[in-house]
Structure formats: structure tokens, C-alpha cells
């Protein structure tokens, strides 16, 4: 039982990390149908900028806020300098731009900072909290709380605000969006800023657990992407559930079956779920009448 509890807590910890990354994908995806492959880099930047500001003597909370703001600005720059000039390009081309951007940001980070691993102290210390015979680090609770908060925020944004609906409209039909008076460029800029900020927040929250370095973005983005697709791309609920599910799945496989094939098990489950639900768990089925 304690064993199961430990696997579960481990899964939730890791799953919350995936969920945070997956949530970051939703806004840009919802605004443009583009899966931003540089999302992992936003997470990395959040961690790295905090690390280096903190090392430079800035108090940790301030360093974190700085990191989020700078990353959001980088997100805006990415949109203004690379996505917007390519307006009208096919979605695949935009995806390649984001891949190029991720390589670029990685290259920049390794020069601006370094290639070492880093971390900064956990927000509430490292004393494990015991739950049902198992333990969890306080920082994991921060990550879980962060994921929940971002989820609620996004959910409200997309269902309750007109701007949120304008974001959806922009991806659904950009021309029609302009025809009703939506400034689609502004929507894109906003989306990149928010996505980048969410990514950076993820980076700030997870770095004490996962550590950070200039190249952690790739694997985080990959897992986040898989989680988002498992849950249903574009739906905040999907991102949250997909992330947690993936995390728990990996932990249970590692615990009960084989740690060597835990990633394999995760992918097999993703495949199985998609075969049964081709739109992911919460993805909406697009109705296209003929």
C-alpha cells in the first residue's frame, strides 16, 4: 500500500511537470493550430534565467518574476520576428520555424549562460512530507498547485472571456476573425506572451526538482506534447489530465513492471487511447460537414 502510494506520488509529481508543459502548448495551438516546438525552450529559459539572476544576488521570488517576464518578452519577439513575417505560410512551415527557434534559443542560452546543470533551492525546503507511508517533497506540491492554477486560469480564459473566444476564433478561421474585427496579430502576440509566461512559470516551479540546463527543453517539450495529445490538444482539461495520466503511468510501470520500459509503456498506452479516441481523451471532434 505504502508502495503504491509512493508510486502514485511520484507519478503525480512527474505528471504535474508534464501537465504544466502541456498547458503551455494550448494557447498558441488554440490561436494558430501551431504546435510550438520551442515551448520546451520557454520552460528552460524560465529555469535558467531564474538560476542566473538568483546567483547574481537577486532574491528568488524576484528572480522568478524576472524570468517569467523576460521569457514572455522572448515569446513576443518570436512571434513578431519569426511567426508574423511568415503570415500565410502553411502550418508545417510555421512548425519548422518553431523548431528553428528552439535550436536558436538553445544556442543562445549556451553562449549567454553555460552548459552546466543548475538548480536553485526549493521554495519550502527539502523536508519530505509523509502521506500514507510514502513521501513527497514540498516542491512537488508547488508544481501540482501551479498546474492546477494555470489550468483554472486557462479554463476561465477560454470559456468565460471574449478574448479567449477570440483566440479560438483566430485559429478556427483567421479571415472570419478579421471580418468580425478581431486583431489577429494582437491575438497571436498575446498568445505567445501567455504561452511563454506559462512555460517560464513551469520552468521556475520544476527546476528545484528536475534541475535545468540549456538543453532540458527538448525532452520536456516531447513529453508535454505527448501528454497534450493524450488529453486532447487545445483543451486545458486534456493537458492537465493527459499530463497527470502520463506521469502516473510511467511511475506505475517503473514501480510494478519494468523501469526500463516505462517510457515504452507510456507510448503504448497513448497509442491505445488514440486508437479508441482519435481526438484524445477530451479533444473535441471537429465537425466538418460535406
Amino acid at each position: 500500500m505504502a508502495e503504491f502510494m509512493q508510486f502514485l506520488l511520484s507519478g503525480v509529481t512527474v505528471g504535474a511537470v508534464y501537465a504544466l508543459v502541456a498547458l503551455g502548448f494550448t494557447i498558441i495551438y488554440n490561436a494558430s493550430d501551431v504546435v510550438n516546438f520551442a515551448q520546451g525552450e520557454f520552460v528552460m529559459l524560465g529555469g535558467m534565467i531564474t538560476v542566473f539572476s538568483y546567483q547574481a544576488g537577486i532574491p528568488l521570488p524576484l528572480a522568478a518574476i524576472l524570468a517569467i517576464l523576460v521569457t514572455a518578452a522572448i515569446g513576443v519577439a518570436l512571434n513578431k520576428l519569426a511567426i508574423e513575417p511568415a503570415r500565410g505560410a502553411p502550418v508545417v512551415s510555421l512548425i519548422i520555424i518553431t523548431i528553428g527557434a528552439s535550436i536558436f534559443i538553445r544556442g543562445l542560452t549556451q553562449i549567454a549562460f553555460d552548459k552546466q546543470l543548475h538548480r536553485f533551492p526549493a521554495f519550502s525546503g527539502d523536508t519530505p512530507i509523509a502521506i500514507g507511508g510514502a513521501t513527497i517533497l514540498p516542491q512537488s506540491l508547488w508544481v501540482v498547485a501551479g498546474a492546477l492554477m494555470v489550468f483554472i486560469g486557462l479554463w476561465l480564459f477560454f470559456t468565460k472571456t471574449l478574448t479567449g473566444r477570440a483566440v479560438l476564433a483566430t485559429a478556427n478561421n483567421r479571415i472570419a476573425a478579421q471580418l468580425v474585427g478581431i486583431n489577429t496579430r494582437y491575438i497571436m502576440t498575446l498568445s505567445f506572451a501567455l504561452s511563454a509566461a506559462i512555460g517560464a512559470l513551469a520552468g521556475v516551479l520544476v527546476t528545484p526538482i528536475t534541475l535545468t540546463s540549456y538543453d532540458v527543453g527538448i525532452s520536456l517539450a516531447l513529453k508535454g506534447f505527448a501528454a497534450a495529445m493524450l488529453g486532447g490538444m487545445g483543451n486545458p482539461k486534456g493537458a492537465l489530465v493527459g499530463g497527470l495520466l502520463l506521469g502516473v503511468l510511467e511511475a506505475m510501470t517503473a514501480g510494478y513492471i519494468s523501469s526500463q520500459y516505462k517510457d515504452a509503456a507510456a507510448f503504448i498506452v497513448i497509442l491505445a487511447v488514440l486508437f479508441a479516441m482519435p481526438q484524445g481523451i477530451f479533444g473535441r471532434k471537429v465537425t466538418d460537414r460535406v
Partner: protein
Amino acid sequence: MLTVEGLRSRYGRIEVLHGIDLEVGSGEIVTVVGANGAGKTTLLRCLSGIQPVSSGSIVFRGESLNSVPAYRRPARGLAQSPEGRQIFTNLSVEENLRLGAFLFSDDKVERDMEEAFVMFPVLREKRNLAAGGLSGGQQQMLAIARALMARPSCLLLDEPSMGLAPILVAQIFEVVKGLRALNVTVLLVEQNAFGALSIADRGYVMETGRITMSGPAKDLIADERIREAYLGI
């Protein structure tokens, strides 16, 4: 109200509008008729700003629209019900209508929506369904209703009667006629030339990117050439 002079537009390297001159007075209903591929849709797209203009000018209420981006034009009073309907298929019918009134956040939005539902009762039935699931004609109604939600002073309609049942076609033309009373200017592109000319004040005939004829709607309906080429009479 709306003055177009020497308007040229191209897709890639192929020019499809070769200098269009056109005028729509305040509160007027003006219709453009023409064969498939004449460039009617392209003209409307230029007016609403989603199609680049290569030369010529568009003046709306005394101001040039040439450098006004598409998304600013609704705020100036220009709304379009586009060809192919272009509704937000993933959003609900109600969300589509609300987005039509994207620029407004007052109580009138609710009243406008109510009016739209009165005009097209099906939309009320389907208000919470994804617009992509609507039938073709229902989508067309939604596109028109959405354009009206923007409280336009000038409405651009691209084949509004397409795909609508006869009973509704008649209704649409009534609605357009009714707009005159509200002092809304209408530029109407229609394949149902007879219907369109019957309610319009003036009309233009377009052939392969040029205006070849224009005049009061009554005269055009009576014109032998037009009867033969467009009305099939």
C-alpha cells in the same frame, strides 16, 4: 458613402480586377451581378480588406480605407457576410454571434442576438451546438446574422441567398430591403440577379474584372442584354 476608383487586385501574378469604379450612396442598396469568375467576390474581399489591393482607392465615409487593416474596418461600420460562409465551425452558434459583436460589450448585444434568433429561429434551437454541424443553409443564415451583429452602416453581402430554401430567399431579400429603413447601406452580390435587382436601387454588371454596365436597377432588369445573359429570360 463608399467610393471605389480604379481598383485593381491580383492573385499572385494574375490580375483579376482591372480597374473597378463603383459608388454606393448612403442608405442605398446596390447590387453587382456577373458570371462565375467575374471577380465579384474578389471585389468584396478588397472592400473588407482581406484581399490586397494593387492600385486604386477605396474611400468610405470620406476616409481612405486603403491602409486600414481588415480588422479595423468593422469598427468603421463595414461588415461582410463572405462567400463560403466562413463561420467559426468549432465554436457554438451563440459564440459565433457573440464574436460578430466582438467590438461591443453593451446590453444591445443581447437584444441584437434576440433579433437574430427571431429572424432565424433555427439558430436559437441550435445555439449551443458547434456551428460546423449546421446544414449548409443554416450556416448561411448564421453568416448573415453574424454580419448583422456587427451593427454595420454598410453591409457587404456575397451571395446571401445561396443554399437557402425559397421561403428564406424571399425573407432574406425582405430583410435587405428592410435595412434601407435603418439607413444601412448594402452592397449585394447575387447570382439570383432577378431577385437582387428587384430590391436594389442601382446595379453594376461585372465581366472578367471590369464593370461593363451600370444604372438604376429598374433599367437593368429591363435591358435586353442583361435579361439574356443573367436572368435567362
